[in-house]
């Protein structure tokens, strides 16, 4: 991870702080400190970004605002990207409008482009391997042992080469084989409606927020969602069913719980779970935990997970080297919930929402597949 990226993502939450230099006994350092404070105070950006809600989707548009939200805690997802909204950059490079390397010759590759190149390499390798395997089978049936040995040797070399290739830096791979950048041919393939003029294209991407993320930003940092007050937003997220066991509130409790313990929380649908927990964020490392939110009893609006389903999820999660967490949310009584809800509807402030959420409790357990023969150490 480069220093530049570390700096880009230095805020885990949308809070701006003033970094003061070390103060010593030397009075000059006091002045230096004061000067730094004043300077940073003036530079302090307003980082609260407003959210639009339409057609059931919470969005942030415009690359400046998207980056603001993404860079302060990796909230949201670019709808045309794997996570960080990079569609405009990628598309401009694909259409040959921007170079692939920066002035200092550094490769400007996004996550998506890396994945694409690696997948293509793997595909090529598999085709070659299949070809050799077909030959192997042919020689096996004809009993031509010398040819068979030759082909088997070729296959071994191919597999070795592929291992080498996987370790090879992308930069070299691209220099040798690819013309990802500057492909004017792609321009003719692309939709002409995409172009504003010869060198500019429309930005079709927006950042989509999960409902829990929208409520989190609004509740804790004062982001506006359309012109809803906090209670109206809460109602919207709860799908207008204001019940103590509504699945949204259970999800939100868990999201907020891990967020406030410093984890980066993203959607876990990819791995059949509710959330993924990253120690810092997606650009830095893979997620360590997959979270499955469990009510303390079966809620009215969702079927509970059967053993067979938890077993399937645990296999998927285990297969990608993550640990499965079953996070149980203990609910308050209906009366206590109703009382706090009424207070919240009368005064839709963060304080009253906090009073409501404080009625819930969280417990977590690790779920791991256990094999008697392999776990006897």
């Amino acid at each position, binding site marked *: 991870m480069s220093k530049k990226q570390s700096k880009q993502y230095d805020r885990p939450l949308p809070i701006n702080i003033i970094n003061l230099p070390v103060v010593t006994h030397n009075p000059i350092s006091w002045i230096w400190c004061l000067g730094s404070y004043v300077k940073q105070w003036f530079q302090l950006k307003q980082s609260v970004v407003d959210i639009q809600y339409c057609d059931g989707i919470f969005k942030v548009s415009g690359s400046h605002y998207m980056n603001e939200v993404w860079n302060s805690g990796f909230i949201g997802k670019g709808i045309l990207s794997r996570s960080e909204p990079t569609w405009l950059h990628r598309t401009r490079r694909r259409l040959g409008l921007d170079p692939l390397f920066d002035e200092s010759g550094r490769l400007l590759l996004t996550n998506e482009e890396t994945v694409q190149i690696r997948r293509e390499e793997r595909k090529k390798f598999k085709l070659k391997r299949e070809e050799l395997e077909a030959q192997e089978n042919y020689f096996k049936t004809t009993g031509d042992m010398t040819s068979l040995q030759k082909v088997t040797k070729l296959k071994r070399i191919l597999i070795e080469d592929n291992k080498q290739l996987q370790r090879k830096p992308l930069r070299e791979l691209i220099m040798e084989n690819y013309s990802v950048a500057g492909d004017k041919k792609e321009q003719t393939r692309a939709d002409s409606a995409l172009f504003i003029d010869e060198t500019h294209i429309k930005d079709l991407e927006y950042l989509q927020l999960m409902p829990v993320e929208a409520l989190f930003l609004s509740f804790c940092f004062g982001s506006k969602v359309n012109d809803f007050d906090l209670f109206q937003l809460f109602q919207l997220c709860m799908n207008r069913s204001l019940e103590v066991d509504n699945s949204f509130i259970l999800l939100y409790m868990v999201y907020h719980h891990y967020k406030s313990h410093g984890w980066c929380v993203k959607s876990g649908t990819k791995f059949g779970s509710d959330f993924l927990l990253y120690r810092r964020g997606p650009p830095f490392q893979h997620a360590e935990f997959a979270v499955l939110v469990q009510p303390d009893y079966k809620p009215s609006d969702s079927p509970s997970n059967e053993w067979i*389903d938890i*077993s399937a999820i645990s296999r998927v999660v285990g297969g990608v080297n993550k640990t499965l967490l079953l996070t149980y949310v203990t609910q308050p009584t209906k009366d206590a919930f109703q009382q706090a809800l009424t207070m919240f509807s009368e005064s839709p402030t963060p304080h009253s929402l906090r009073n409501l959420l404080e009625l819930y409790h969280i417990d977590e357990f690790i779920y791991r597949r256990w094999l008697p023969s392999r776990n*006897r150490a």
Partner: protein
Amino acid sequence: MNKLPISRNEGLIFDIQTIKNLRLLGIVGYLSGTLPLSTQQNNFLGVPLRLLFEELLYVVVHHSEYYIVPDDVMFQGLYASLTNNDLQQIQFQAKMSQLRTNGKKIPDSAMIYNTEKEPVFHEIKNTSSHLPNVNTWNDHFNQPEVQTKLLFQLLQSRPNLSHSLADYLIFSHLRKNGYFITAGLRFGGKFVAYPGDPLRYHSHLIVKPVYNGEKIELKKLVNGGRLATAVKKVYVIAGLTNKIDVDGVEPQLELDPKEFITSLEASPVKTFSFEWAGFG
């Protein structure tokens, strides 16, 4: 004739020859016995072979050379359900076939038990606990009438008969398509299906039954597809086209379970296979 001993409503086979014969029919079961000297090991399991309920049912319905032998509990249930007339008939059949095996020439017409006639052999139903038991009845279990009653008893022991029948029909659909089937919990399904003997092939399908035209959560479907693709398999959801009304069919099941289950197998099973599309 091969015996299928039942223990606590489950097929539990100790006889090696029967295990071999079942394997030839595509019935795998799973070995569950451990070694007396190292009871904690589970890599080299031996007899008894446990049968899935679906496997047991499949063998009994489709292969008349196999018959169920009850355990004590099941036998008590059977004995309690018999009328005096049933008992006389069973005794009659047993004696007649015994005479036949001893070399007596008896015409087929004489083998049919006639209730009009004065019975030749009498056994009055006895409620004292130590008289009839599994051992004294050993020769009677292969009679079709007894098998019918035992099979019905077995079906009644299922906690959810409608689901069990659906599971069975899916099992039978797969078996008839040449697949070998084992339990699938470790892959998040009800069954795992192999294109041939599991000792020779990797499995192809993870099968999840959908009951009574219910809907399946897309979340589970995506998860199943993802898991299956990761282990080079396909995730299959399977269900019956026609709904089975369990309460409505119980009289038919009691009368002749084999016949009725065979007739259910004629109605189609719908399957869809899911796998990752390779992008996205």
